[in-house]
């Protein structure tokens, strides 16, 4: 665990399995890239690397770090007009960065807000502003 959300003070009752983290990571990559193949490959690449770093123990994989890395590499995917996404995920994909990745992290509902703020390098208030703006942009883009 890294960042200010260390320990069980935030969500002591909730538990997220590696499966949930991987699915969430896949969703983030999918929204960023617009391609399920690219997303699957990205998940595999980062997970294999993180698995090695964790001495090949899935329980020790730093999934938070994987989300941070995915956010940091958010601009490495070109926006695809003919992407494989439909409906809201497609609209999410069309948002500019960092709105796209920040709002997706928020909607994944797998990371604490304090950690999302940390990896997006903003305060909780600034995160709230970004979410408000991104949500409005999302609603506008849908119309």
């Amino acid at each position: 665990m890294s960042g200010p959300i260390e320990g069980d003070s935030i969500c002591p009752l909730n538990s997220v399995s590696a499966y949930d983290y991987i699915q969430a990571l896949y969703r983030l990559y999918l929204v960023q890239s617009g391609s399920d193949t690219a997303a699957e490959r990205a998940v595999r690449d980062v997970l294999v690397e993180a698995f090695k770093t964790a001495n090949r123990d899935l329980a020790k994989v730093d999934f938070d770090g994987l989300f941070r890395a995915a956010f940091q590499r958010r601009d490495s995917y070109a926006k695809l007009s003919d992407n494989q996404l439909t409906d809201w995920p497609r609209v999410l994909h069309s948002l500019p960065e960092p709105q796209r990745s920040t709002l997706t992290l928020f909607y994944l509902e797998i990371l604490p807000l304090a950690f999302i703020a940390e990896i997006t390098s903003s305060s909780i208030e600034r995160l709230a502003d970004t979410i408000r703006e991104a949500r409005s942009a999302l609603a506008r883009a849908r119309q």
Partner: protein
Amino acid sequence: MPSRLFPLIRPVYENEPELELASTEVRNNAELNVVLERQIAFDNEIVDQLRLLALSDAQIEKLEDSLAEDYGQPAHPHIIPAPATAYVPGAIGSATAAQTVSQPDPEPVDHPPDAEKNAPEKKPEEEEEEEQPRARPLTIFFAIGVGLIATICLIGYIVWDQMNSFQGADRITELLNSANGLTGDEFEAVQTTTDSLKDWFLLKNEHFTVPKEFGFTRTIACRVFQFHNADVGQVMAKDDRELLYFLFDPADLGVQLKGGKWEIVEGERLVGGVTVVEGTCFVVAFRGKHDEMQTYLAKKVTSGNQ
């Protein structure tokens, strides 16, 4: 006017310390509460659609294979949680909590259909099959290495054993052991020197030659007896110790030894020094061990050459 944190309020985040105050404020304000519910409804639609995007079971298995293949994972890593672990959609966690015991989310949330589809319901046989550990390449190489070293050692031992032995050594061991039950009555008293035994053997129709190193030892008694259908001359002699000589045609007992070379053979009680001289296999034996015979022969051969 709503709090600045209002956009962050969602049921799953409401218990977070940063939001507690803002959330209570909004929940206590009927007007804001309506706006919040509208916001939550809007967000729910997106969250639900996002949850439909999921890696299939086959993709997850492929991913597990990639992890297992990487440097040879001893045990197949299981990404799909075991059936005992409750799936908690909407739960917020961290990597450290990833493998902890699950507890149900107090708030009921609909399971995303795809996630449910992906949730494992594996047959016990499949699980057993998956749980079988795979050996790391390092372990395999180590095992092969140990096997190779053991084989090389075994071959080395066989070669060494053959180099330190000769054909017919077993027969000589038997011959030495055959002397264990002798009482002395079997012999004919012949008190002379070994060198002079030639004549005695000639009388017995045998043509045995004694190595020159042993030509001057005093004999006590002699005999010729049958051993595995071969005529063997046996001599009791006295040097600095009691000795027993055996003389025979090496071909009769299948002994093959380079002429002049000495070999040592150990029996149950006796140790024998074996050599072949002019077509006669000569064995000098006494009670003792290999090292004693080695010393004895070294001394004897050296003194014989001088």
